[in-house]
């Protein structure tokens, strides 16, 4: 599959001297993409033999978790820190550069901590340090990840032929079900889901996920067509398969991203959704650093291009929608998600007063504002981990952080003022926090102001680290400060805000504080200044603020547009929101909040500053605007026009620019797509695709996703065979609409289903399947037909009335009503069958003798029916012997007949029983239970085998003449030899076992009369039935053996026993369940194995074409009966005694002296073996009594 790829030797890092393949051009592009960021990011670059130390020193616990305590092999890892090896990336490098958030499919992990993995984002394979990664297995993604693993295994497997795999679309089901599961779990299954409706990024993420899926489905169908039409240049097929793997990777990458966005949204949304801080305090004790998931929202090496695209996309929407400040705010905030807005909302006096009752305690306020602050900082820090982020985002994040920070500050301040005596240390902490916030704001300002107009609209990583330090400082300082404040509160007691000022006034006052810490109110800032020892922070702060106010300060070229905009903002506020998408309306709220916050002040300084960066964004957007889908575009465009009504000229120009963006065909030629090789369609290409032609297909995929399915409850092995599944999932597999069901699976199911479900449950599941498929119009009729066929097949060929009777009423009812109403003739047929089945014994339509093994044996090789039967080798005199025996004469001896004919008749006798063994006799080890009552033919078979052995022993031992015994032994050796020629291994086994038994083999004198030639023959025969190495020789012989052949049944029985006992009945399907243990599903693998063994046995249920000689059969039978009657189950002991009598032990004679001493010993033991010692004694010591 990867033949066409570049081979890369492990020049630098690879801990093992393994040549790793790479997905050719893929990796180049990804690495090129990485190169950009690498230049600036590779802080941790060296030639590592062992993985570089874990990036963040403070995360020792993480380190331990990653490397030391990892007993579990994780299939997927996710980088939580970028890894960019220092050296230039050459073709010979196999170290994978990682970007934070990259998801990797792990193939193996070396003990030194390096893992061999494939980067999903690019398909590049190489070594990567596991300590930079953590296991990635979020519950929502689990099924998709699992499906990807299966997919990967399947597509790369060489075991199964392409035709088998790709001849139908079965192999696609896992991926589809995985995507469905993801969307289902996240409540985003339908387009109308509220989450999707609310969040534009999610909506687009979902759409791009689906279009990727549809593209994969399309490719898969193409492949199927190709294989079907035999236009199979193998290269082509391989190319397509490679492409499919990449597409599957991308589906997962998009799924990951989707989930990231969703989680960030959830996280930000959760606290303020309750509007007031009380719950916030309970629900989100936000950790200082957000989980990696949130960081990774936008980043991926390969995704970077796309992400940049989508990000700028947002921004370009911004541009379009940003006639005003207000809409600017809104767009941005919708990037960082609604909650922010609502959160800001909280600060609005009105809602606040409304719920003023509970959260007015200072401690509550303290907690909630601290939480808010931390959540902003958290998401900010999280975003800092992105390799790039846009300026507006940064600006907004800083603004939010500063706002919430100042709110916290205000609360602290209140505490300070409430009891100044206790709060000295608090004061210091407060000052420290203030400093940190200031640092953060300053840093941000510096970075934002140092804009190179031509530079990318992203914050450089080195700036990131600066911001990171500042933000982390804030987190720490805030934590200390809050702790101190709590300590103070404990001392002075909690108090109500309301006590200080009544009603709205309080919150207003708080707000005053907010705005006070913001630059606007000179008096409060003065107050603050006076409090802080440094005496300048507030000044600095206000100066900073003023820098925000004054666009003049900025060296930015974009500023010109900024100056006139304050008015715009106002106008935007006024403009009717009705014409805007929902998100914009929310955004407007933000703005109104913001404006109401600032409206008390005469000037509105901070916003223009933000706007500046936005205009930057705007100018940038056209270049990267690539991932829009047209739908979105158009809606936005109309919005733009409607809102542009009241805008000024600056504004109009921007508008024209933005509409140019959306209309110009430049989209397709993005830098990203230029980099991307053809096999790796970039997101932009895809979405162009999507908007152009495949929207139906996306819809198609979507409708597929909406279908009820249990496909995710199936488990597969690497060959793509079902190894486990819930009953509904198995039934679904049985009645798949896309292809004729896999014959092996179907026969295994019919044969074994009673082992894992009751017949009535199966009937119910089938009927349920019939019902729920009705929701999916395109496949309802084929599936229903299949359901009918499955039930028909069950009734016709697999019905076991004793157990299945209980299902009959349900089936009849189903046939009459559900099925009958849709397919009257089918319903009628089923009713007929149901009636007949209950009145007939045995199956209505005899099933093929070896339906399961059919495929493995070419029928042409069976002995054709027109070949004349061989003539029996029975002479006249032998006939006469037999007839005189029948007339009461003496019984002939085994020596009287031809070995060949005895072997033939024996074979016929055995085969008759063997052929009548029913598959159900072999299930659940039941031939060993209840005395084998449910497995009569198995029992008969083993009984016959034992009888034959006994006949052999008996016929030998019945002669007291040594030479006669030797002659009989020779005769049996010849018969065994003939059995081998007839491929009758069961007979061979029975005879050899007897000849080889201690009873016969000890007859030394007898054996001396057997010629060496016969002994050699026996030895050769014996090696065939030799049980060592798990019947290696016999297995090898039976492998692909052409019937007629009678295998040794015992070997099948042992195999079946071990499959039955050695494999559990159920499995845990991770992910699909409702708890962490996963779903318990049927271990179908066990049943497949059982069915396979039974199928192999059935393959040999093929009668010999030999002539039965009735008289000889009769004689054989009489011999068996005679032996049976005389022995009565103690045959072995009886024969052993006989053997000892014929040829007494010799050794005891050698040691007669020892005998007396032995007598004294172990009387008890001797007692136990009295029969033995007696025999011995009898021979050697006449004194021993019997």
């Amino acid at each position, binding site marked *: 599959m990867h033949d066409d790829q570049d081979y890369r030797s492990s020049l630098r890092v690879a801990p093992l001297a393994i040549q790793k393949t790479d997905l050719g051009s893929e990796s180049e592009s990804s690495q090129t993409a990485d190169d950009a960021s690498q230049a600036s990011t590779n802080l941790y670059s060296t030639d590592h033999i062992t993985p570089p130390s874990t990036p963040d020193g403070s995360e020792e616990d993480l380190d331990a978790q990653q490397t030391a305590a990892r007993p579990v092999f994780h299939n997927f890892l996710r980088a939580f820190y970028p890894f960019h090896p220092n050296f230039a990336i050459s073709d010979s490098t196999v170290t994978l550069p990682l970007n934070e958030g990259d998801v990797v499919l792990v193939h193996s992990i070396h003990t030194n901590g390096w893992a061999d993995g494939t980067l999903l984002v690019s398909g590049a394979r190489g070594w990567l340090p596991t300590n930079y990664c953590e296991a990635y297995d979020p519950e929502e993604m689990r099924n998709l990840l699992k499906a990807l693993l299966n997919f990967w295994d399947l597509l790369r497997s060489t075991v199964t032929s392409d035709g088998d795999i790709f001849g139908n679309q079965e192999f696609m089901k896992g991926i589809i079900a995985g995507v469905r599961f993801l969307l289902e779990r996240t409540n985003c299954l339908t387009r109308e889901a509220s989450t999707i409706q609310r969040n534009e990024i999610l909506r687009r993420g979902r759409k791009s996920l689906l279009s990727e899926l549809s593209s994969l489905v399309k490719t898969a169908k193409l492949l199927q067509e190709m294989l079907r039409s035999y236009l199979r240049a193998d290269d082509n097929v391989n190319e397509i398969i490679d492409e499919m793997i990449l597409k599957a990777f991308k589906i997962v990458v998009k799924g990951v991203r989707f989930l990231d966005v969703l989680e960030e949204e959830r996280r930000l949304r959760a606290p303020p959704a309750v509007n007031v801080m009380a719950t916030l305090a309970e629900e989100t004790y936000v950790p200082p650093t957000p989980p990696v998931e949130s960081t990774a929202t936008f980043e991926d090496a390969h995704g970077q291009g796309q992400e940049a695209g989508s990000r700028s996309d947002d921004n370009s929407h911004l541009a379009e929608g940003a006639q005003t400040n207000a809409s600017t705010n809104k767009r941005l905030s919708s990037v960082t998600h609604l909650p922010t807005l609502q959160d800001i909302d909280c600060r609005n006096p009105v809602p606040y007063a409304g719920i003023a009752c509970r959260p007015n305690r200072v401690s509550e306020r303290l907690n909630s504002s601290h939480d808010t602050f931390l959540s902003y900082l958290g998401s900010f820090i999280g975003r800092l981990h992105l390799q790039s982020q846009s300026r507006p985002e940064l600006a907004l994040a800083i603004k939010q952080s500063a706002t919430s920070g100042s709110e916290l500050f205000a609360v602290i301040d209140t505490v300070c003022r409430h009891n100044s005596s206790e709060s000295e240390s608090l004061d210091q902490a407060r000052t420290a926090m203030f400093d940190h916030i200031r640092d953060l704001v300053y840093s941000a300002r510096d970075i934002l102001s140092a804009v190179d107009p031509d530079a990318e609209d992203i914050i450089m990583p080195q700036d990131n680290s600066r911001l990171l330090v500042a933000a982390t400082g804030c987190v720490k300082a805030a934590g200390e400060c809050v702790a101190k404040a709590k300590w103070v509160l404990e001392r002075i007691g909690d108090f109500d805000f309301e006590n200080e000022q009544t009603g709205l006034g309080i919150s207003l006052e708080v707000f005053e504080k907010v705005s006070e810490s913001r630059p606007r109110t000179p008096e409060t800032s003065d107050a603050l200044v006076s409090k802080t020892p440094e005496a300048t922070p507030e000044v600095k702060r206000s100066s900073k603020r003023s820098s925000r106010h004054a666009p003049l300060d900025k060296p930015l070229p974009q500023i010109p547009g900024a100056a006139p905009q304050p008015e715009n903002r106002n106008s935007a506020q006024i403009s009717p929101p009705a014409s805007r998408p929902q998100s914009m309306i929310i955004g407007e709220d933000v703005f109104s909040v913001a404006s109401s916050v600032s409206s008390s002040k005469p000037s509105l300084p901070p916003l223009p500053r933000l706007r500046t960066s936005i205009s930057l964004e705007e100018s940038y957007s056209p270049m990267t605007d690539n991932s829009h889908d047209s739908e979105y575009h158009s809606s936005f465009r109309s919005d733009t026009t409607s809102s542009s009504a009241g805008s000024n000229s600056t504004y109009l120009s921007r508008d024209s620019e933005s509409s140019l963006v959306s209309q110009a065909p430049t989209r397709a030629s993005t830098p990203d797509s230029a980099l991307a090789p053809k096999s790796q369609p970039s997101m932009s290409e895809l979405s162009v695709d999507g908007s152009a032609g495949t929207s139906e297909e996306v819809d198609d995929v979507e409708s597929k996703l909406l279908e009820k399915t249990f496909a995710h409850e199936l488990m597969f092995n690497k060959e793509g065979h079902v*190894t486990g599944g819930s009953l509904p999932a198995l039934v679904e597999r049985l009645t798949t609409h896309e292809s004729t069901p896999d014959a092996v699976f179907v026969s295994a199911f019919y044969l074994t289903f009673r082992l894992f479900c009751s017949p009535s449950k199966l009937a119910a599941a089938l009927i349920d399947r019939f019902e729920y498929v009705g929701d999916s119009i395109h496949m309802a009729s084929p599936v229903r037909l299949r359901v009918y066929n499955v039930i028909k097949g069950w009734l016709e060929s697999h019905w076991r009335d004793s157990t299945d009777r209980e299902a009959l009423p349900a089936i009849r009812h189903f046939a009459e009503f559900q099925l009958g109403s849709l397919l009257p003739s089918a319903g009628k047929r089923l009713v007929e069958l149901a009636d007949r089945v209950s009145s007939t014994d045995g199956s209505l339509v005899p099933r093929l003798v070896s339906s399961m093994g059919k495929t493995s044996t070419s029928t042409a090789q069976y002995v054709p029916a027109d070949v004349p039967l061989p003539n029996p080798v029975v002479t006249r005199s032998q006939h006469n012997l037999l007839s005189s025996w029948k007339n009461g004469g003496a019984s002939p001896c085994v020596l009287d007949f031809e070995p060949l004919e005895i072997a033939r008749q024996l074979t016929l006798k055995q085969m008759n029983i063997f052929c009548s063994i029913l598959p159900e006799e072999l299930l659940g*080890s039941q031939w*060993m239970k209840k005395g*084998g009552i449910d497995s009569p033919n198995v*029992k008969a078979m*083993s*009984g016959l085998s*034992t009888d034959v052995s*006994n006949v052999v022993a008996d016929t030998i031992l019945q002669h007291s003449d040594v030479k006669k015994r030797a002659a009989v032994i020779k005769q049996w050796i010849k018969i065994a030899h003939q059995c081998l020629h007839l491929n009758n291994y069961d007979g061979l*086994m029975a005879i*050899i*076992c*007897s000849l*080889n*038994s*201690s009873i016969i*083999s000890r007859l*030394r004198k007898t*054996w001396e009369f*057997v010629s060496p030639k016969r*002994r050699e023959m026996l030895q050769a025969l*014996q090696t065939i*039935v030799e*049980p*060592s*190495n*798990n019947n290696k020789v016999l*297995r090898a012989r039976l492998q692909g053996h052409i019937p007629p052949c009678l295998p040794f049944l*015992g070997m099948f*029985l*042992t*195999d*079946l*026993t*071990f*499959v039955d*006992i*050695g*494999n*559990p009945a159920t499995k845990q399907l991770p992910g699909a369940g409702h708890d962490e243990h996963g779903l318990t599903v049927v271990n179908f693998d066990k049943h497949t194995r059982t069915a396979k063994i039974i199928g192999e046995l059935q393959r040999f249920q093929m009668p010999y074409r030999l002539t039965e000689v009735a008289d000889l059969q009769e004689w054989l039978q009489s011999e068996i009966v005679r032996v049976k009657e005389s022995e009565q189950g103690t045959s*072995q002991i009886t024969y*052993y005694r006989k053997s000892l009598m014929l040829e007494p032990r010799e*050794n005891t004679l050698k*040691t007669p002296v020892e*005998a007396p*001493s*032995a007598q004294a*010993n172990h009387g*008890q*033991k*001797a007692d*136990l*073996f009295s029969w*033995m*010692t*007696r025999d*011995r004694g009898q021979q050697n*010591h006449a*004194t*021993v009594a019997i």
Partner: protein
Amino acid sequence: MAPRPGRYQPAREFHVVVLGAAQFVHNEWIESYDPTIEDSYRTQVNVDSRPVVLEILDTAGTEQFVAMRDLYMKTGQGFLLVFSITSASSLAELAGLRDEIIRIKDDEKVPIVICGNKADLEDQRSVPRTKGFSISQRWGVPYYESSARTKTNVDEVFVDLCRQMLRRDDASETYPEDSDRFDPYSYKYYKDKRKSRKSQNKDPHRPRCVVL
């Protein structure tokens, strides 16, 4: 079988035969168990830091092929007699099996371990522990209670058996062989028999016979 093992030969190979009414699948409950593979019955264990390759012949499922037992038993150098602690009758069957082993191997000291399986099903126990131990004492063979399912005492059972076999193997080498045992074709087991015969002869404490 391998040529006569030298005293310090690194890995000895022993054949163990598992007998009894209760199946004792030594590698039960692995993810997907395929018994049709040759290797599934071969295992290497370390016994007192001596490597030993065990080939385990488990006849589960073929109890009804009575005549086969002789063949199986001949193959083995050590025997695991398994019964289920939940079934008294399964214990009763062991006596017959042991008699047969001793007869076939012609050796009362043949390495044997009695194994009360399904020890995880304590609540269904119908064979008291003491019963197992009393039989163990009477036969002079160790008794273990094990659970293949919970992997309790599974290894221990085999290790014990290995120790017994190793001890005999070591001991047998100090004695010259005698050749009184005749075996026309099963040369593979020929040596074992001679060994057992020999040790039987040389063991002064071995009961020679007899009831008078």
